[in-house]
């Protein structure tokens, strides 16, 4: 595993922040007074003297050894398969009308988090809540708080800052996040500085599918159709619709997706993980089946939780249509290939993927080159 020897804030700044690699996941934040997530950017406030920094070590955009990470979490090496290690694929939907009223799709995430809290599996959950249109990490300990976080916020959110700031009393916790956030957690777990993080308190991780997030500049565009406080939901409906939907009390406004895509930060185009491969289970939309989620169960822990939710009558499950699975697999594969192409283009060397460390063989397979 790549260690953080001799790398601190200065390296983070050069290799990640100023290089446009930062995903704004928040893994570096809330640990020290030298940097702070602010308006979609990690603001560096002062020069830090620490030679081996947690910021650099936990960052999912520095020395990401896919083999070591996958091995540690899933017990197998990284083979570059489009969806990562999966035990079970299914389609699911909450049976709780209140959850469904708040949730993005089938409310699986909210339901599972509530269950984990109810059953005392965790004492808190690191979730994402939008305030005034700006998403931020929060620690939910009660059902109402989990419900307040339901729904997807498409702005990148420094959610892991909330994990880093966790009060010493809250233990254990669940974390819900995007693929880059799941990668950061996996990296924290293997970091030589893991002892000085809260990763030991994380006993459940729920990943979200993610093709891209949006930069904070998008708020300017959004505010031309609705003030952030009035937005109830935003959504990217599946193709062929090429729109970004903004739901308000007054109805739905559809922004042209191409215009919205202009706000995708360059860092997202360098991401090779669409389905949050480093989570206990991953949740996304079920294209063409409104009100349902696609669920990829990856670990025994994830599996137990889903089974328990079904047993308690909280989740309805069904098989994921074959066409959905094929489409998902293809999208995930395309994301991997694009990321590798973009990274190689950036580095100027066909086998140098900057932060991403892969075996030659896997890289070749992903790029479709021998």
């Amino acid at each position, binding site marked *: 595993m790549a260690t953080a020897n001799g790398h601190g804030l200065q390296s983070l700044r050069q290799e990640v922040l100023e290089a446009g690699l930062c995903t704004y996941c928040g893994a570096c934040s809330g640990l020290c*007074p*030298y940097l702070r997530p*602010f308006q979609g950017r990690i603001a560096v406030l002062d020069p830090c003297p620490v030679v081996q920094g947690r910021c650099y070590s936990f960052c999912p955009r520095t020395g990401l050894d896919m083999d070591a990470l996958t091995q540690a979490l899933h017990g197998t090496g990284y083979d570059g398969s489009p969806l990562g290690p999966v035990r079970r694929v299914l389609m699911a939907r909450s049976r709780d009308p209140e959850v469904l009223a708040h949730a993005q799709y089938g409310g699986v995430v909210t339901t599972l988090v509530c269950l984990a809290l109810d059953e005392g599996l965790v004492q808190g959950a690191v979730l994402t809540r939008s305030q005034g249109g700006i998403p931020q990490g929060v620690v939910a300990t009660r059902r109402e708080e989990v419900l307040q976080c339901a729904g997807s916020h498409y702005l990148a959110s420094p959610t892991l800052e909330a994990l880093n700031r966790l009060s010493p009393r809250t233990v254990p916790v669940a974390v819900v996040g995007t693929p880059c956030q799941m990668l950061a957690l996996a990296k924290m777990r293997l970091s030589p500085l893991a002892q000085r993080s809260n990763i030991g308190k994380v006993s459940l991780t729920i990943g979200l599918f993610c093709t891209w997030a949006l930069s904070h500049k998008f708020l300017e565009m959004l505010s031309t159709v609705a003030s952030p406080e009035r937005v109830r939901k935003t959504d990217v409906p599946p193709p062929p619709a090429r729109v970004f939907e903004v739901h308000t009390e007054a109805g739905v406004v559809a922004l042209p997706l191409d215009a919205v895509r202009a706000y995708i930060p360059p860092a997202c185009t360098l991401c090779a993980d669409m389905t949050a491969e480093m989570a206990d289970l991953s949740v996304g939309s079920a294209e063409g089946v409104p009100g349902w989620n696609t669920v990829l169960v990856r670990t025994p822990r994830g599996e137990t939780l889903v089974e328990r939710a079904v047993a308690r009558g909280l989740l309805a499950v069904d098989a994921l249509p074959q066409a959905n699975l094929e489409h998902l697999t293809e999208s995930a594969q395309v994301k991997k290939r694009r990321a590798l192409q973009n990274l190689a283009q950036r580095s100027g060397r066909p086998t140098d993927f900057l932060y991403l460390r892969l075996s030659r063989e896997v890289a070749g397979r992903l790029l479709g080159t021998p």
Partner: protein
Amino acid sequence: MFTLADDAPGTTQLLMGNEAIARGALEAGVRVAAAYPGTPSTEVIESLARVAKRAGIYVEWSTNEKVAVEVVAGASFAGLRAITAMKHEGMNVAMDFLAHLNLTGIRGGLVVVVADDPGAWSSPSENDSRAIASWLRVPLLEPASPQEALTMTRWAYDFSEEFRTWVMLRSCTRVSHASGNVVVGELPKTSPIARFDTSRDFLAAPAVQKHAARLAQLPALQAALESSPFITYEGPPRPDLLVVASGVARLYAAEALAILGLQKSVGILHVGVTWPLPRKAIEEHLARAEQVLVLEEVDPFLEGNLRDLAGEVGWLTPKRSILGKRTGHIEAYGELTPQAVLRALALLLKVEFQPRSAEYEQKAQRYAQRYVVNRGIVWCPGCPHRGSLWAVKQAIRLDGRDGFVTGDIGCYAMDRGLGGYQMTKTGSVMGAGTGIASGLGKLAPFGFNQPVVAVAGDSTFYHACIPALINARYNKSNFTLLVLDNSATAMTGFQPHPGVGKTAQGDEAPVVDIEALCRGLGIPVQVFDPFDLDKTIPALVESLQKQAGVRVFIMRRPCVLLRPRDAKPPFRVWVDPERCLGDACGCGRYCIRIFKCPGLTWDATAGKTKVDEALCAGCGLCTAICPANAIQKEAVYA
């Protein structure tokens, strides 16, 4: 205790150079004194203010040096004797009017004291003001000691009235701030009536005629200076070397000659009136020497004039020379020192001289360190500027577009010191921060997108920021001006100004409200407590990002030094050793290394930060910056 208003003729008093100037002015019957404070000139007017009521004179702190000169010129035009004092940089501000006052003429005697700061001990520049005297054709006096400062000042008034010209009295730090025995003279018993004679005028125009008249007057003026008591010679009739010295350099020369035992072979000609040059007196002495060394503070001013004279009278031959700063025998920058004089003399006269070893300096430093804390230029513990500049730093870094501060002259300039945050990138003269920001704020069409924060103290704001601010408003510039209102002219020693409700003489005065003034200009103003970081940082970020014209933030909190010594601090502040993790924290000693308040120190034994109770002013600002919340505070009730 003797005060300057005591009439004790013939007695010897211990006076500081600036006090001696003030006493000289009182003995000459000065009625009006006005100035803006500026080190090393401040005590001239300050000591007059202290005795104003007893002496029956009027003393004011003016908003700036130009206004001060205008105020004393008014008094002079009405027939009263008057004095103003300023530092060399203040003279630049006053220049606009001074460069006309030489043509308008005066009525009551008028002395303009300028205290230069060789070595720039308390100034951002080390200009020599004397060239201004020759440029404006006004007489120039240079005292060497407190006694001479008194005598020359008193003498200057009759001279000023006789030739209807203002007189420049040029002092330096070592004359102004040295104390010495001074025999004082008599104070006048009567006072003239002030009246402006409307049958005459004080216009500069018609300039050409006035200029011609000024030049025509010079020979008489020069002749009068020749017979002044301020040209003296000490030494053998035919010296091996003639030292020509002005100001305090004469004392350095005497000291050096005594150390080298050269009094018998080297002579010192002290020239206390250096412009127009008293040619005859100097010519006489030149005639008896083959080599001349000129000693003076800052520029080779006297040296150049002397060289001109020597050339004109045919004294200069290949075997004779005039040595000094132009020839590299003395450095033409920095403060003149007895050491430099010793070195030059030893070299010229080829005498053994054991220069002070380099170790001496180090040794002296080492001994001194036993008695003084080794601390760079820092804001005092409890200084409101720390809160203001901290907020600016945080806001600029959060904004992330490489913003910066255009600074000004005051304690906040210590942002560039060891204890500061290095956000200030320009700083030279009063008011310039606002003017420069006004210019930068118009560069958006050329791709400029860095936010600009101008800072100025309250006294500086009144002094020179207002025209720049009006300019910014009128021309729709874009920046944030922080008026750091600490209710004091802190850097020069707490002289009152238009914002504090008191005059130089201690009387009640109306307060000129900065907020209302800015509002009157149509500029949005907000008032903040610089210690309320939760409010100031977001407000600043918003202001930097909005870029909507010029905005003023008044950061208001009195200078911590204004708090009475026996008053309780607002908070008791301490470091909770349970929470401070020391070097294990990962913060890299943030409070000490980044925040840098001298009230926080590193306890090497405990490996944690601790509050230095002797220094901490109890402001509580640091409690907001510790990432571990280890710095605690508790309100102290008086």
